[in-house]
């Protein structure tokens, strides 16, 4: 398959925080859901 015809993979930096990439992605998704929840709360709040 074409996308398996990879070039020599360049060296990469270590994962910067949280130890693994899946944990970083999970943190991003949790933050996104939290921001949406805050926006919903902001919209519905009785001022």
């Amino acid at each position: 398959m074409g996308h398996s015809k990879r070039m020599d993979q360049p060296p990469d930096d270590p994962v910067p925080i949280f130890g693994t990439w899946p944990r970083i992605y999970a943190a991003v998704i949790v933050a996104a859901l939290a921001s949406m929840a805050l926006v919903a709360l902001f919209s519905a709040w009785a001022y």
Partner: protein
Amino acid sequence: MTPLDWVVLGTYLVGIVSFGVWAGRGNKAMDDFFLAGRKMRWWAIGLSVMATQISAITFVGTTGQAYTDGMRFLVVYFGLPFAMVILCLTLVPFFYRARVFTAYEYLEQRFDARTRTLTSLLFLLSRGMAVGVTLYAPSLVLSVILGWGESTTILVMGGSTIVYVLYGGNKSVIWTDVVQMGIIWIGILLCFGVAVAQLPAGFGFRDALALAQTTERLRVMDPSPSLTAPYTLWSGLIGGLFLMLAYFGCDQSQVQRYLSGASLTQSRLSLLFNAFLKVPMQFLILLTGVLVFVFYHFHAPPLLWNAVQMRRLQERADPRDLAALQGRFTAAHEARRRAAEGYARSREADAATAYLAAESALQAVRGDAVRLVERVNGGARYNDTNYIFPTYIVSYLRGGLAGLVLAVIFAAAMSTLAGEFNSLATATMIDFYKRYFHPSGSAAHDLLVSRLFTGLWGAFACLIALQAGRLGSAIEVVNRFGSYFYGSILGVFALAVLTPRASSAGAFYGLMAGMAAVALVSRFTAVHFLWYNVVGAVVVFAVGLALSALSPRAVGHA
């Protein structure tokens, strides 16, 4: 505009062009010019990605949209964080490891030359048109402030951006974006703070929010399942997700930013940086627009936001009709002010009803004014949404702040333009000139031609900008135009990385089918444009897979 405002704005313009030229020194080959030598760090790329996306249209158009329609537009960005994660898992590693200059170059490695050429051509068409609108929006600002012609503004802004991008390439783009993004954040926080501080005595921030809430301007989450309703929660989450996947994953103006990363990790982090910041930033911009709406309850708004059109109306309309209209408008505004104060004091249902009636009465007079303008202009559609925020800035910001906020609008425009000039030149150079006409030029020759293409695209953008005034709300125009192609191109990239069975014929004809499907949906249904990307991507993927399965050699390039 005071002399201090001019000093601030002039300092910004001279400073950013000088800095851009200085930051872009030392280019010796295309790798330097187009990808900044592939040495950039995540935070610089991340700020550049953000600056490229936040155009002056975002700043001027969405504040105006929040004023007239509320904060519903925020949902468009709800899909962005998820799109960033998906891209980090899928396309970004493929692009980075393939060591390509353009996203479309990767499609030739995976499929064939015609798929690469067609997708790159679609990018050039859609982005080439969009960059003209991006350049046009800030010209509205100075036309309101000084009565300058929009053409003059277009040439000043486009020309100054061309100078540093033409000289320094992507290095100039990224480093000026870093500075411009800092200025933009300062401006956003400043506008927000000033809008709150300028509320009248005895009328607090909470009162302002209550008033905005009564008119449904704080409503963001519309759970309607309708495909035709604009900016529903689902169109934002799903349509917005596909829009952001297409924009950040398949649009060279963004791909080129993160291809400049020193490593795959740097490229990924730059996108995730955006995933954290984009929604809060857009929230603040929209909320500022809502606060300007509240502000104009206590300060007289103009009958028309476009001062040029107002002057035309004064020249061409019957003076008695216009005076009567202005009188009704002033009275309706005064009635709305009293109703707003009454509602803020009591917060009772009756007061809310009275306030909404006063708001409707004011809008009815405004509607009469708009119809009068359209009649005077021979029936041409009139929309002054993009003039609201600039009018507020020059009318009520003092002590150099107007100059600073205008510098923010310039920064937002120039950062986007710079990225787009650079990426349009890259696609032209890599996907066409070097692919078909002159594959083995010397480094000096390639650099010279790359600069030539940068200049040509800049000139083309100026030409398009001169025609953009005939289009409607600029923010919608840009997104709508991109939506005709974006989703279909995303479908091709999905075929490339998600399935080994996709063949080049499947990708090519799938792309045709996707664009045809979007054209049909657009022509014969009232489906909102945010769904076009979903339609395009899904049709391309399904048709591409089906054709690949039917073709004699079902497996793609091995």
